[in-house]
């Protein structure tokens, strides 16, 4: 399998504290990789590092064979790596459809003067975008909710909506930061199903998650972080039986 994302000796210091230390990892095309670890292990920091929200102190990030360390987030998004956020992020005062249609930012082909002057060509392109946005909402199971205000949706639907928005940016690699945090068991099941569909679209995914049910049922490979170090890597079965991982989560037996 071709490599999509690779980090080499990736390190991030906050003052004297190393949030990520000499991290080497690889994500292959088409995989679903879960990143797990206790609180403060550096999972979200890792996402911020590879997507350009933070700059590495040392080491570098390769995406699609290109060195992208130090690039700003919008350029990395343009190259096809898009991240979601732990907190629900959308425009609460806009409708679900508007949210998704705005998320098409990278793929509109509408110029600045074109949209300011509201030319017929820009209107036509906007119509196309709306159609695609409706399709995406259908895809995440939100058909018929187009005109709901995003702020009025339940948490589960808000998270689905934000996944639709991130798909609108047509990512090659989607980084999901706790997609099921705060969800009910039923919402979690729906989310797992939807994420399975996203994977069937050919989107490679990397997921930070605390819900082990999601992690074990959904990932091809699991990477475990603790104190910024990679302590284990392997299939769900291997990880479940890894002594170091159990120690990191539960402590050692006296």
């Amino acid at each position, binding site marked *: 399998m071709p490599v999509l994302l690779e980090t080499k000796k990736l390190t991030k210091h906050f003052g004297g504290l190393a949030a990520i230390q000499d991290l080497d990892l690889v994500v292959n095309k088409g995989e679903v990789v879960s990143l797990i670890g206790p609180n403060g292990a550096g999972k979200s920091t890792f996402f911020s590092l590879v997507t350009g929200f933070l700059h590495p102190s040392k080491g570098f990030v390769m995406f699609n064979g290109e060195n992208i360390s130090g690039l700003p987030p919008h350029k990395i*998004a343009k190259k096809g790596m898009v991240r979601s*956020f732990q907190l629900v992020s*959308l*425009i609460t005062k806009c409708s679900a459809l508007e949210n998704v249609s705005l998320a098409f930012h990278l793929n509109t082909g509408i110029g600045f003067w074109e949209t300011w002057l*509201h030319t017929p060509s*820009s209107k036509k392109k906007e119509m196309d975008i709306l159609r695609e946005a409706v399709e995406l909402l259908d895809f995440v199971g939100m058909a018929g909710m187009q005109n709901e205000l995003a702020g009025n949706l339940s948490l589960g639907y808000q998270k689905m909506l934000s996944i639709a928005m991130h798909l609108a940016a047509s990512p090659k690699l989607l980084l999901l930061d706790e997609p099921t945090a705060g969800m009910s068991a039923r919402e979690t099941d729906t989310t797992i199903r939807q994420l399975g569909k996203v994977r069937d679209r050919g989107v490679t995914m990397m997921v930070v998650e605390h819900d082990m049910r999601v992690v074990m049922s959904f990932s091809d490979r699991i990477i475990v972080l603790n104190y910024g170090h990679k302590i284990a890597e392997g299939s769900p079965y291997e990880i479940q039986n890894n002594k170091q991982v159990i120690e990191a989560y539960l402590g050692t037996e006296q």
Partner: protein
Amino acid sequence: MKIASLVKQTWIPIIILVLISLPFWAGDYILHVSIITFITIIYCSTWRQNLISGDFSFGHNAWIGIGAYAAALLGLNLGLSFWVSLPLGGIAALIVAVIFGYATLRVRGMYWSVLSWAFGEVMVAIYTRFMVPFGGAGGLSSIPRPTVPFFPEFVDSKIFWYFLVLVLMLVILLALYALEKSRFGRTLTLIAENDSLARSLGVNVLNYKVVNLAISSFFAAIAGGIFAYYVTAISPLVFNVLLVFLIVIYAAVGGRNHFMGPIIGVTVLMVLTQGLLETGAIRSMLLGGILIVCQLFLPEGLVSLPKTIKGWFDKRKSKGVADASSA
């Protein structure tokens, strides 16, 4: 209900009729207040355009001042025609805004507000400090009158200025409205609401903010330029931070989340404070009082008044129904 729909259908034609006929029945004083009102509406609407990207500016006076001084100096020192120096004043502000924007718009929220405030005050200090070319504390006077094609004697009549400023205001408002409804404008809303999300979706946030600041400053500077040529004399005091406070109050009272907010806020407060009271202290007190009352009872501004009143009525009605059914 019938009255409501009648109002809805007729208010636009009535406003147009009033605006067009005003010069033919109103005196010079009313025309003067109208002209200043139109100019202030441009100040206030461009300030709100700046706010759409989440940047609350306390330095809007800088753009107005640059437009006024640049247009006036081009006319005074280079003898350029009003019709050329006015847009050049706008471009001067636009260039300064692009430089200032790239230097500062990485800073967010309140911190940028403070930076913009400082910049506005620096501009005032520059006009005051340099006799050449800004005329120091005394400012510039005897700014040349524009030449009006075909009707050269027309320039001293208020009617000419009234229609000139009215048309300019309408064009600028139309441009700002189209911009707000465009994809560019809606992306600004996304940036204001959650700029990390915008960046992760591929938006170059800094560029968007700078372009928005440049557009807003360009139009504000045009309004400043026309103000300079209308009153024929400007001084640094006119463009200090108090001007921004007025703009912010107008926008807050009218409703800063709505396109009509600045227009309604400026019109209502201008009529109330110019028409009824001339003295400075009482005017400030009245403005402050109105601002406080509005923030307490109409946080969305006067634009939301119809909705709020309807809400009260609905509440009373449903309460009445509840009382009736319980009795």
